[in-house]
């Protein structure tokens, strides 16, 4: 008998939602010590299923049919009090956003100790002792200090370890992990995955792991369930599903994962379109007090490179490596501290006023978050024509141009009259790209332009960018933390670490035979390498 059995579970959405059921007729089992991955894109119902298991469905959302059997009890029939005593003790959960999963006003030690308090276990002194042991166990540096730290004093990876420590405090039988590594860097992600695997082995708990990343699935799953529109479309052993997917959706998801394959490097033209020399940027924060030393962060140190017409340069690195700061200096959203940025032979790093305004149209940016980068109160037409009109184009021409742009990025010109919230994330990013292209810039800077998108949407947007680059002969700087994406679209790659360029060269060279330990560690951390090897072996076998 399985530890957990979900039978024909359906979850109803409140009236007026875009569909009736968030989850429809879902059945699966989970055994002791097993890792089951639920894979699917946003809105597939994967998180809803997990929340139902915890009895933590959002208000208005209720299970409408089926059962969830755990240790001979149907969780759906339990009272609030019974569910409460189960949560954290028998089933616990970790969440996607480590930055917001902890109470900002409480010390992390107290937040861990609270788990014991919730279930009336141990004395306060013992709780503290256990909290300290748990911090040790999840591998946090210097637990004696960390126990007194507030969440904001820890990095994303460290906070996720704290959340895991809380989830493990009472040695639950089931751990539900809802996209626990999505918000983290590759290297941190690899560490957290290792930690979960290690704890599973030691404590023998079952893990229900929700993710959209098949690379992660390949690394940790015993079995896989693929969900689409609230239904299970494929289920089976991890190896079988990954190597021989039967459902078209699974195949599409698997195909959408960018592989580490390289783009043919183009021959550079003679004169660079953008030339950066010794660019540096330092942030100094005066943080109160007369006698404190101000905090100095060297975000970018002596960056130098040339970008040629039609070329794409990728800038990769972990969060805090300075890649976004570099991008922002190039568009002059930040004023570089020193160095030269030449576009078409003119240094734009020091210009101001109207000269700077004239320059702005030559270099445009596509931002990471398609939700916050479009003004929610403006129609798409306004968003696209604003820049053109500011540079003197008359309204009618500007609107014609905007319609052309919408067609170019694969949207219907009727989108002009609509507001951003009427579009999906992928569509909004297309609008963002159209906006960047409106002024016919010489250089486009894409700052994590596909990071916030689901894999299949990500693939479409990447295709669009590649297509535009070829058709318009665009020069691009592509900032990303995802090496697979960088490999796919970039001619050359800059690897940044703590503000310095540690490696720079053609993609095939930087990612194919990396020269620095740092680049190697970034490559090693990419999930799903074993799977790629298996795939390659499979291909060879077929040939």
């Amino acid at each position, binding site marked *: 008998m399985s530890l957990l059995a979900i039978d024909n579970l359906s979850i109803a959405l409140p009236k007026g939602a875009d569909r009736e059921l968030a989850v429809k007729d879902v059945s699966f089992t989970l055994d002791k010590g097993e890792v089951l991955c639920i894979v699917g894109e946003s809105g597939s119902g994967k998180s809803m299923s997990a929340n139902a298991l*915890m009895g*933590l469905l959002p208000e208005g959302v209720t299970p409408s049919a089926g059962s969830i059997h755990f240790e001979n009890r149907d969780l759906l029939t339990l009272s609030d009090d019974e569910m*409460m*005593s*189960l*949560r*954290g*003790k028998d089933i*616990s*959960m970790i*969440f996607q*956003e480590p930055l*917001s*999963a*902890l*109470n*900002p*006003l*409480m010390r992390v030690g107290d937040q861990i100790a*609270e*788990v014991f*308090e*919730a*279930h009336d276990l141990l004395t306060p002194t013992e709780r503290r002792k256990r909290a300290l042991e748990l911090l040790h166990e999840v591998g946090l540096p210097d637990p004696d200090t960390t126990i007194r730290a*507030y969440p*904001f*004093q820890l990095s994303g990876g460290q906070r996720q370890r704290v*959340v895991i420590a*809380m*989830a493990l405090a009472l040695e639950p039988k089931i751990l539900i992990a809802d996209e626990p590594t999505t918000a983290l860097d590759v290297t941190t992600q690899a560490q957290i995955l290792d930690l979960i695997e290690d704890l599973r082995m030691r404590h023998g708990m079952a893990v229900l792991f929700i993710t959209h990343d098949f690379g992660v699935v390949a690394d940790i799953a015993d079995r896989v369930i693929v969900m689409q529109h609230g239904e299970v479309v494929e289920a089976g052993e991890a190896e079988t599903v990954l190597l021989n997917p039967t459902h078209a959706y699974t195949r599409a998801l698997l195909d959408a994962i960018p592989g580490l394959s390289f783009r043919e490097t183009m021959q550079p033209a003679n004169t660079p379109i953008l030339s950066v020399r010794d660019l540096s940027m330092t942030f100094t924060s005066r*943080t*109160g*007090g*007369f*006698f*404190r030393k101000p905090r100095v962060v060297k975000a970018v140190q002596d960056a130098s490179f040339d970008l040629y017409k039609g070329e794409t340069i990728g800038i990769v690195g972990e969060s805090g490596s300075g890649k976004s700061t570099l991008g922002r200096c190039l568009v002059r959203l930040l004023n570089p501290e020193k160095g030269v940025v030449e576009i078409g032979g003119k240094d734009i790093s020091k210009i101001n006023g109207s000269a700077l305004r004239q320059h702005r149209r030559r270099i445009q940016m596509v931002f990471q978050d398609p939700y916050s980068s479009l003004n929610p109160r403006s129609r798409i037409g306004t968003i696209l024509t604003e820049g053109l009109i500011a540079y003197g184009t008359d309204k009618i021409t500007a609107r014609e141009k905007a319609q052309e742009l919408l067609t170019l990025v694969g949207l219907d010109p009727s989108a002009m009259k609509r507001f951003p919230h009427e579009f999906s994330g992928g569509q909004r990013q297309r609008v963002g790209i159209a906006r960047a292209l409106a002024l016919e810039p010489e250089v486009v800077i894409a700052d994590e332009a596909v990071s916030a998108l689901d894999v299949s949407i990500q693939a479409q947007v990447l295709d669009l960018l590649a297509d535009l680059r070829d058709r318009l002969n665009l020069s691009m700087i592509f900032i990303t933390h995802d090496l697979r994406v960088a490999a796919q679209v970039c001619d050359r790659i800059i690897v940044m670490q703590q503000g310095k360029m540690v490696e720079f060269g053609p993609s095939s060279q930087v990612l194919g035979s990396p020269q620095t330990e740092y680049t190697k560690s970034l490559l090693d951390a990419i999930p799903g390498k074993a799977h790629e090897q298996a795939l390659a072996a499979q291909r060879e076998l077929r040939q």
Partner: protein
Amino acid sequence: MLGFIAARLVKAVFILLAILVLNFVLIHAAPGDPAAVMAGEAGAADEKFLQDLRERFGLDQPFTVQLWNYMKGAIQLDLGFSYRQQMPVAELIWDRLPATLLLTATAFVISIVIGVAAGVLAAQTQGTWWDTLISSLALLFYATPLFWVALMASLLFSVVLGWLPGFGYQTIGANYTGIDRVLDIGKHLILPATTLGLFFTAIYMRMTRASMLEVSRLDFVKTARAKGLRNSVIQRRHVLRNALLPVITLAGLQAGQIVGGAVLTETVFAWPGIGRLMFEAISQRDYNVILGVFFISAAMVLLFNLITDILYGIVDPRIRLTK
């Protein structure tokens, strides 16, 4: 933290001096000659008498000299002399300050306690008739002009029902002592303090409710649920504490008005405080008193701003530890 407080104190002193100069300049730029007013009331408006008055009060000196003298005095808490009341301004203010502080502090406590409690209740019963009732009352109190509430409250509870005294600070001529005096003042305090606190009660309620509902949706509240914590603990420890941060800002604003903000209430209820002193001074062109009251209320605003910042630091470690 100490460095932070020291820096803020130094800044506050400079701001206070700037306010002092600005007030002085503004008052003197206003039309009207205090000597003429005094002379007029004395019934002897001939040029000689006016000249005497000006000389006596230093009004014949150049403007910059007057300003300099005033500043010198203010730093030593000598706020000049009230021509009308024939008393030093500082003494006048010290006499009236206790009554004002008692009134405004009581209003402050009433509004915070009732406002926050009602806000918590409304948030927890969101969508029920409790919530509707509390929110509607809050809107009513928020929208009603203070002077009207004061007049109606006085009419109803004092004139019609006769439950509470309608004016003054204590029963005139009763000469109570000890506990009887405390009770007497308390009875006089109820109407003005409640009236004065009503507006802020409504604001606290609305702010607390909105803030609680917003915090309830945050991820860490879900984490707390996932731990198996009881709802009452989650609400108190995780939701309320975070939800109170904006309330502190608001409390700082209200506290800043403790001295200057009670003009209307004190006038309607004949409460012998600073607010009424200011009202009288303005109608009598008693410049030095006006300047003195402005100065004291500005100092209070700065003081409570500082206290708010320090409180923020205590409640929110993100502020305390990055300072």
